[in-house]
């Protein structure tokens, strides 16, 4: 320590701060790009909420694991009736909320009833609309009756929007979340960070960390500087893939590249005058050079897709060949459709860099086949209003991050306005299908239909790129749901 006194005061500060960080090996500081607006996952959609609270503070009956599989959480086990309508869950006993109150079947009933109530503000209310009733059998047993059999119900309960909350504490959850998880909320310095600490009374397997801090840095440059300076131990959703090679070259860090459920598409308004013609949509699909977009916008991270389905899913079909980069074919198709003079389309881009950068690249690729685009950069609120609800657009770029969401193509009201009876029937059949082989066949047929109809330009599966101190173990590599599950995280040595 004597040496430090010789240094300038500024240097001394930075040395001291990094020393204190080194001393505490049971705490971790995680970087996140967006700050959650509040911490109640049951009444807002922001992914950032789940990225703080999921599995850490709040738990549901079931939960996602890092590999995407669903395992029991607060429910120890469950039985499904033969008609597939009644689920009887046995809960763990001796579970308490962070405020000391007991978690029992009444809380489960409260949480699920609240989520499906008429005045519910749950962002994923459709997850619960299939529930006909929730009944308390005894304090550790709850039975849920569905109106129709639903093969995805157990998965639905694993969502962050389906966590179990207590009637005593839910009203304050926005700023003081009280759950059953291994971490307790400790404080929120708004605009800067959220701190959580170990819950000593946790019912499940004890965790290694004593304390975790989520620090919010929206600016990618600042994020880079913060990781480089050691202010942040891990940045799981690192926003600037162009910096990853620098982290890779530095032995202090390890770069984590995993998959997400985000199909990134060039969405086309199928009801917009010029895009009703499938030849125009096909021309656009052939005009797109996916690799150039992945290289230019994502600096090489991402897997090309040819339909709206995640490549890591076992039922995925590689249909990229069907819309291979072929500008000559694109020009020919446009000519056939009567646009030999070219045409102009609007391209409305939301804020993420995959959209902004990808948009510039696609605009230049489309220009080469004679399609001019008018780019307009929008904020999310504007995008929701104009594109998603108003359907006032020709083209847009967005990553659809919900898992297994091919069903959105069956909704003719969905913003790209694809209306195909054949596809809708496939999805209806899928809802009723229980046989694994049959489900695979139907899922693959659904993938083919939307590829054949060139509904959207299918670009790439968004990669999850992160960076972490190389001594950290147990962070999720893939992102089957939006979460920073810290239950298995520890420091080596």
């Amino acid at each position, binding site marked *: 320590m004597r040496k430090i006194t010789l240094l300038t005061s500024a240097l001394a500060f930075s040395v001291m701060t990094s020393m204190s960080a080194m001393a505490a090996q049971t705490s971790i500081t995680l970087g996140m790009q967006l700050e959650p607006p509040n911490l109640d996952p049951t009444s807002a959609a922001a992914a950032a909420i789940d990225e703080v609270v999921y599995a850490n503070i709040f738990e549901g009956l079931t939960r996602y694991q890092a590999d995407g599989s669903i395992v029991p959480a607060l429910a120890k086990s469950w039985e499904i009736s033969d008609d597939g309508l009644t689920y009887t869950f046995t809960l763990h006993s001796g579970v308490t909320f962070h405020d000391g109150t007991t978690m029992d079947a009444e809380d489960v009933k409260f949480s699920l009833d609240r989520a499906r109530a008429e005045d519910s503000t749950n962002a994923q*209310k459709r997850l619960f609309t299939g529930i006909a009733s929730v009944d308390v059998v005894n304090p550790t047993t709850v039975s849920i009756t569905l109106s129709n059999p639903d093969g995805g119900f157990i998965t639905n309960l694993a969502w962050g929007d389906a966590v179990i909350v207590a009637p005593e504490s839910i009203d304050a959850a926005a700023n003081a979340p009280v759950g059953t998880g291994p971490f307790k909320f400790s404080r929120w310095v*708004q605009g800067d960070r959220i701190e959580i600490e170990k819950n000593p009374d946790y019912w499940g397997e004890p965790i290694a960390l004593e304390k975790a801090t989520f620090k919010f840095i929206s600016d990618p440059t600042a994020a880079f500087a913060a990781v480089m300076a050691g202010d942040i131990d891990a940045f799981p959703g690192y926003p600037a893939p162009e910096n990853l090679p620098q982290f890779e070259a530095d032995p202090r860090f390890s770069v984590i590249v995993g998959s997400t459920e985000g199909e990134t598409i060039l969405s086309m308004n199928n009801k917009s005058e010029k895009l009703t013609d499938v030849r125009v949509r096909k021309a656009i699909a052939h005009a797109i050079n996916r690799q150039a977009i992945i290289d230019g916008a994502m600096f090489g991270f991402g897997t090309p897709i040819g339909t709206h389905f995640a490549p890591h899913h076992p039922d995925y079909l590689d249909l990229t060949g069907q819309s291979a980069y072929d500008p000559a074919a694109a020009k020919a198709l446009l000519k056939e459709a009567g646009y030999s003079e070219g045409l102009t389309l609007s391209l409305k881009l939301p804020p993420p860099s995959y959209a902004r950068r990808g948009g510039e690249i696609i605009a230049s690729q489309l220009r080469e086949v004679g399609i001019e685009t008018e780019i307009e950069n929008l904020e999310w609120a504007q995008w929701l209003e104009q594109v998603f*609800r108003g359907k006032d657009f020709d083209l847009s770029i967005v990553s659809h991050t919900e898992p297994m969401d091919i069903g959105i193509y069956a909704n003719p009201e969905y913003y790209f306005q694809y209306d195909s009876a054949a596809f809708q029937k496939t999805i209806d059949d899928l809802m009723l299908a229980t046989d694994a082989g049959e489900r695979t066949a139907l899922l693959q047929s659904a993938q083919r239909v939307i590829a054949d109809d060139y509904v959207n330009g299918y670009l790439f599966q968004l990669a999850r790129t992160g960076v972490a101190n190389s001594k950290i173990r147990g962070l999720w590599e893939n992102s089957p749901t939006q979460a920073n599950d810290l239950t298995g995280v520890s420091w080596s040595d």
Partner: protein
Amino acid sequence: MVRYIVTRFCVLSVSLLVASGIIFTMLEVVPGDPASFMLGINAEADTLAAMRRELGLDQPMLQRYLSWLGGMLTGDFGISYTYRVPVSELVMARIWISLPLAIFALILSTLIAVPAGLIAASRRGRVSDWTVMGTTQLGIAIPNFWFAMILVSIFAIKLRWFSAGGFPGWDQGFWICMQALLLPAIALALPQASILARVMRSSLLETLSQDYIRTARAKGLSQRRTVWAHAFRNALIPVLTIIGLQFSFLIAGAIIIENVFFLPGLGRLIFQGITQRDLIVVESVVMLLVFAVICVNFLVDIAYALVDPRLRRP
């Protein structure tokens, strides 16, 4: 005098009312629904309606305006849509970053500018004057966000002398916080110091040329004492005026710098409020800033009128 103050007070009230109308209308016509921003793309129509009800957005526009206005008069600025805490609480938390940052930047810029202006004025036309004036021209021309980027990449990334940004909170200790504010304050102070140094110089030269200084000089006071004793004090008046102007600019105008250094200040609060359609936060905070500026102007006018009766016209 009483009549003057009363009239000016009426003007002030009307100004504030007009300002509140402008702000409310602007936010009313901003496209984008707060409820749909909060609930995302999977929200059902009835969920959105329920959320709008909860936020009070289903009320008629005039009623919301009046209740907002009434609330502010009683010190109630509403509850943030997204954070779900009172706006006044958010403002109090943020102002303890914006205010110290503005003060810090002003102190820095004054410490640089006053000596620089003094040197330039006392050595007018010589190399040091040239250097100071050239540097200040450059300082005015540099965009502060660019300067901030350069500062971060040199001092935070390359040399790692400072953390790249963020704010630890005052409970972590005064010096740690000052350290976090140093780079942003430098980035903010550079253009301000340049402007101030130029004002200082020209204002000094102006006073030096005035008759009573010439008299003092003729009386045999040395050049050095003349500058210090008389000119300096008089030259400070325009300098102080500029400092006052810069201060109100710095409180809200640091938004880009706050972004570069991810400081959770007032500017960023409003910026986030706009992107998240947290309309009540934007309305109330912008109104608060406008209120502060208008009130300061009012007090300044009254003060001038007290000093100089000729200015007392309604």
